[in-house]
């Protein structure tokens, strides 16, 4: 590993302590306070919390409307995203998610953590990992659509305003994850 990109490594060695891929991550409590203040700002300025999964439903409704407009309009779940006259992508959550992408890229660039890679355990191929990621994304979408929100919109945002359904959801997310983790050890460990 020492033979890879020597000049660059030397140039960056003066920076703060870092992991193999870039600077060390922020202290979790500090990052949590930062995240909490962003969430508080959303409550105070907008009267709503953060989110993510809703933006993807809007994007899917929009994308599919070019291929099968009649299907989207008649679909009970996707149809409402096309109602109201405004462009389906001209939605609060869509703009917020574009911001998430921008903010993460900014943070990653500042910490030298942006690079093309596949995150996986040592015992699985990259192709296998990409297939698992695709399947997991699919499961996650179904769960979030069913629960009316994901880890951001339900667990984090609803959790902070003591919303009952959000706390039920959050407990079940941790429960579901711990239940299947032993079965998927091969992918990660």
């Amino acid at each position, binding site marked *: 590993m020492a033979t890879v990109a020597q000049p660059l490594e030397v140039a960056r060695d003066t920076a703060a302590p870092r992991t193999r891929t870039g600077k060390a*991550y*922020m202290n979790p*409590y500090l*990052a*949590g306070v930062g*995240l*909490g*203040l*962003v969430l508080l700002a959303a*409550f105070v*300025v*907008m009267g709503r919390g*953060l989110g*993510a*999964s809703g933006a*993807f439903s809007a994007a899917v409704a929009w994308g599919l409307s070019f291929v099968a407009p009649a299907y989207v309009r008649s*679909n009970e779940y*996707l149809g409402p995203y096309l109602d109201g006259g405004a462009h389906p992508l001209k939605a609060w959550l869509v703009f*917020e*998610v574009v*911001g*998430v992408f*921008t903010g993460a*890229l900014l943070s*990653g660039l500042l910490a030298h953590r*942006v690079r093309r*890679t*596949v*995150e996986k*355990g040592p015992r699985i191929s990259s192709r296998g990992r990409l*297939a698992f*990621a*695709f399947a*997991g*994304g*699919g499961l996650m979408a*179904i*769960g*979030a659509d*069913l*629960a009316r929100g994901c*880890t*951001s919109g*339900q667990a984090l945002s*609803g*959790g*902070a305003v*003591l*919303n*009952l*359904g959000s706390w*039920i*959801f959050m407990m*079940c997310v941790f*429960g*579901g994850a711990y*239940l*299947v*983790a032993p079965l998927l050890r091969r992918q*990660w460990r």
Partner: protein
Amino acid sequence: MSAPFFKYGLFGEETSLIVAFAIGIGFGFFLERAGFGSARKLVSQFYLDDLAVFKVMFTAIVTAMLGVTYLAWLGWLDLSLVYKTPTYWVAQLVGGLVLGAGFVVGGYCPGTSVAAAATGRLDGLSYLLGVGAGTLLFAGAFPAIKGLYYAGEMGVQTLPGVLHLPYGLVVFAVVLMAVGGFAGATWVEHRRAATHEEE
């Protein structure tokens, strides 16, 4: 001061989209700072090697919860105008379990997959394509699973409301739970690190 500003008409829909973008930047920035653009870091939570997911999440919840509570007590924020998703407890219980399974299978949740894709993780990109496919599947199957989608309807409910406890007391209990959880999480991490060394 009357908050939420948007609900009191301080600015319109168009401006709210700029606010959305700005808030999103803050959200994405801290997700990536915490290491949540990395699937390995995220799933370590479920193999008990690194409990940062729990620590970050509950610190964020406690921070925002205390902020909202104090601002409401000061009379600056009308908590009833802050949007709360209605409770459908059966749908949210099943949805949570499915989403939790998807977290370990895919390595991300929707928000963190965006942070992953933004920092070059191809698995984050593949995950996002999977989210699109899952949404199509859900929409296609909606007539069949409509019963489950609306199961357990309770309207908007809060923990203090259903427990018949004062709001402040529940806030205090959540803070205690979080602090106890942080101590427990650190203890588990140290124990795991010790066992790894023995191996």
